[in-house]
């Protein structure tokens, strides 16, 4: 175990920032917006609040385990994970830097959430989703649902490459 002079909350945020999202490792669980709050109880005990992206996201358990393991490495023998639901996770929490990382990883980042996304009937909002590889706007959706709950499937008519879009949520 490392020698641990008392760690600040900011130190903990920095530590958690090093844990990658298990399904999209290009970004961290902090950048994803899953880690909501950190409460250091004492030098051995800490409470972390997390919120799921989608209710049934199977990666959440892995994220919890990763947080516990990482904090144990830093001397916290008791790590309490609390799942909170409010405010509900939204892709609007992803910063521009995080969106850029998604794009470089080959995933079209989410656009800003609009009122149209909240209407349950009719066609999908007509936002342009740019191809992350060639930046063409000439793309089409092949399915609202993809390899993980947070992504949709697209095809680029310009470079003929299928790609994934991190859905606005």
């Amino acid at each position: 175990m490392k020698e641990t002079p008392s760690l600040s909350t900011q130190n903990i945020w920095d530590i958690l920032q090093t844990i990658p999202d298990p399904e999209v490792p290009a970004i961290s669980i902090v950048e994803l917006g899953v880690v909501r709050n950190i409460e250091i109880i004492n030098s051995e005990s800490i409470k972390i609040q997390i919120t799921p992206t989608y209710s049934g996201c199977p990666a959440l358990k892995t994220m919890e385990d990763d947080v516990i393991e990482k904090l144990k490495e830093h001397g916290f023998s008791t790590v309490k994970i609390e799942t909170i639901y409010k405010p509900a996770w939204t892709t609007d929490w992803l910063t521009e830097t995080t969106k850029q990382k998604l794009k470089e990883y080959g995933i079209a980042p989410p656009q800003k959430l609009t009122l149209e996304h909240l209407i349950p009937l009719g066609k999908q909002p007509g936002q342009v989703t740019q191809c992350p590889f060639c930046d063409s706007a000439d793309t089409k959706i092949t399915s609202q649902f993809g390899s993980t709950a947070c992504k949709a499937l697209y095809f680029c008519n310009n470079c003929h490459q299928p790609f994934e879009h991190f859905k606005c949520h």
Partner: protein
Amino acid sequence: MMTNQQALFVYCQRIGDNSLVLGHRLSEWCGHGPVLEEDIAMSNMALDLIGQARGFLGYAAKLEDKGRSEDDLAYLRDARQFKNCMLVEQPNGDFAATMMRSFLFSAFAYLHFRGLVKSTYDVISGLAEKSLKEVTYHLRHSSDWIIRLGDGTDESHQRTQKAAEDLWSFTNELFDMDTVDELLIKQELAIDLHVLRNEWNEIINQVFLEATIIKPDDSRYMSKGGINGIHTEHLGFLLAEMQFLPRAYPGTQW
């Protein structure tokens, strides 16, 4: 006299059971979807629903405070203790029947969660806010298919109309309430389901009109009793499959 906590325990089970049972039904399509994209879509929606069930049943278990977990509630209760509406336990049938079931239920769940977001109880409003986002695109997805299939070929139209006829008698009980609801409504913890009915009808009318589907007549026999543990025979078979592993191997962990 029922306490708030006891009423909320029942209420959370009703919502959680609806999500769990429909989630299990949709998961039965995994590997059997008509096209790959739909297979993935139904599995994704199943995952959302099972996630919602975890939230509501997990909270129900906490309220009960008898050492049971969300898994105990899901896997170790018998049919008579399940409080879901009968609509969600109906078998998958063909793709039209599955989409019709999802459409009729999602339209209700959308309105229900939208109302519960305003609950004065933080946990309920938080779970509702989360679920509402997901149910919104479940409704979008299923209504889109009802229109495509209803206004599609003769055969797809016929199958979609038949699905509406077959499932209609299970729609009335979506709005069933009892003393549990009454107690919670008084304190603005839950919402009056009767007031959702007009808007639910509007959604159904709007989509059926575009889908050229004739809305079945409300004067037919309507089933009743899911919230009190009365179910069709289908739920028993569903539970037999869903609960097999934890019952045959008690305490098994992944």
